[in-house]
């Protein structure tokens, strides 16, 4: 048993999601990520179960662990009740804590997620909010979304919404005292520490590679696709 394995095993979710894997591959057979990416949850479970630190470290630095879509279809069918998707969550957590996520193209994207969803949670109290689904960045949303966003203040009250207003209702503005409590929960439970780690390790990476650590870096990781990920 290696030191790195011991470390990731501190996360109680690992023991709950990986027991006596028999390498049958049922998880891979049902996995949507395995249909579209060079991705095989069976192999990942096997590496983690082997407790081979060198191989686990390689995983934590690879694109592989970032392909999973977290659908949890694997959990449904595993004859041993394992959940490869949860094993992946544990690996991703440690890849970030140890700063290994910046070693892969897909891992580096975590900064973009932190800046979008992470900030939105603390600043607005929502994971997703219409104001961050911009028409420019989301052409796939189509012309009806464009229309809705243009007229949201006048149209959404029809649907019981309270856009940028206080009081109960959809997409209401969340009061500062509630946001403060969310912030304090993030501080006390290690949520802010995770945010800081993602920022610091990303900045170190950018410096090492002579990249400006500004919006252009976030744009780069948000859009960059080497094309090496598909089958």
């Amino acid at each position: 048993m290696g030191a790195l394995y011991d470390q990731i095993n501190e996360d109680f979710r690992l023991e709950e999601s990986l027991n006596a894997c028999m390498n049958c591959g049922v998880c891979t057979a049902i996995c949507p990520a395995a249909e579209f990416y060079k991705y095989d949850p069976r192999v990942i479970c096997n590496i983690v179960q082997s407790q081979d630190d060198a191989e686990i470290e390689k995983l934590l630095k690879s694109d592989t662990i970032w392909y999973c879509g977290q659908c949890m279809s694997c959990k449904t069918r595993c004859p041993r009740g394992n959940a490869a998707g949860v094993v992946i969550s544990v690996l991703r957590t440690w890849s970030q804590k140890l700063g290994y996520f910046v070693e892969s193209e897909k891992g580096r994207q975590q900064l973009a997620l932190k800046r979008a969803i992470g900030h939105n949670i603390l600043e607005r109290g929502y994971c997703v909010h219409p104001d961050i689904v911009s028409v420019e960045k989301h052409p796939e949303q189509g012309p009806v979304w464009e229309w809705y966003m243009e007229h949201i203040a006048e149209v959404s009250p029809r649907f019981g919404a309270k856009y940028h207003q206080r009081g109960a209702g959809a997409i209401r503005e969340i009061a500062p005292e509630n946001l403060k409590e969310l912030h304090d929960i993030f501080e006390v439970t290690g949520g802010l520490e995770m945010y800081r780690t993602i920022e610091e390790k990303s900045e170190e990476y950018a410096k090492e590679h002579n990249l400006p650590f500004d919006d252009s870096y976030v744009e780069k990781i948000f859009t960059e696709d080497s094309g090496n990920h598909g089958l």
Partner: protein
Amino acid sequence: MQKRFWNEYQKEIADDHYFYGRSCIRQSFTPGAEAAFLNILRQDLGKDVTDDANQHTCTGIGYHSDIVPFYTTATVMARLFSLMTAAGYKNYIPSCVTSFGLFAEVLETWKHQPETLEKTREYLYKATKREFEVPENIAHSSDVLYKFRNELKPKMKYQLVNRHTGEPLRVVEHVGCHYAKVFPSYGVGGAEFPYVLAGLIEAWGGEVVDYPERRHCCGFGFRNYLVQANRGYSVSNTHKKLESMAPYRPDFILTNCPGCNMFLDRWQYTISEMEHKTYDTEGKGIPVLSHEELAALLMGYDPWEIGLQIHQVQCETLLDKIGVEYDPQGKYKDAKGNSLPAPEKPSCLLV
């Protein structure tokens, strides 16, 4: 055979006094569905349900994007439970399937490892001085409509019957992955044969149409949609589902997850722009309704007041099949009744 499996998973669903947990995605993309759900519960079923202005995200999308740690999510959820406790409620109804699945994960963790519950209580108290009770019952909003499906039926103005042919409408359902794939006992019918949406379709006169990729993920995939470079994954998943269901010529798709609802709708537009392909026979796409939208429509709610016009795939073909009366002029009005210019037309998908 299937019915027997369903019987094994008849979960308990509370019958009144609910604390409603709103969904970030549903509020953003189909807010009318949440309003319709509350109206059906309060006005049509006479139930007591509270919609607390102090609620917020459960952080689920952040958790499954791996930027939010487990205890942060568990403690944010505990704050939501503290609001429920303070308001005097014991039954929690999340609108979101991601939330519902994550509530199940957190509750199961607390149950099997009581020290994690204690730790969460300590964190919440330290951060906010709040305390909370664990909910006695947790049911997704689709579970609640499922529970009252037969009570609602005689109140309904319409049925899922094609008024031109007299035949039941053909409906494909898509149950969100996190509804029961992780914790089958939390879902009506479990993970393999979830009956929550099929039960609504059957009770309200329609025919459930099976198709090979029925249980396939819609492809949201969290980071796989949220980061632009990964979106090919998301659209590929929906593409696979649409290709699989199209030969069965469904009249519409029924969903219970707000994310799936949006993706199955929007990706039809994207695919039509990319490949000039639509999945119905008229070039208009397959309409996608949520459980709340379907119930409201059959109850006789005005389709434009529940927000069906802000789906990209338009619903008039379906309304005409059901025989829903609607005012075509009312579609693009604002809340004060002023007419607005219509959205631009897509280049391929007919509206």
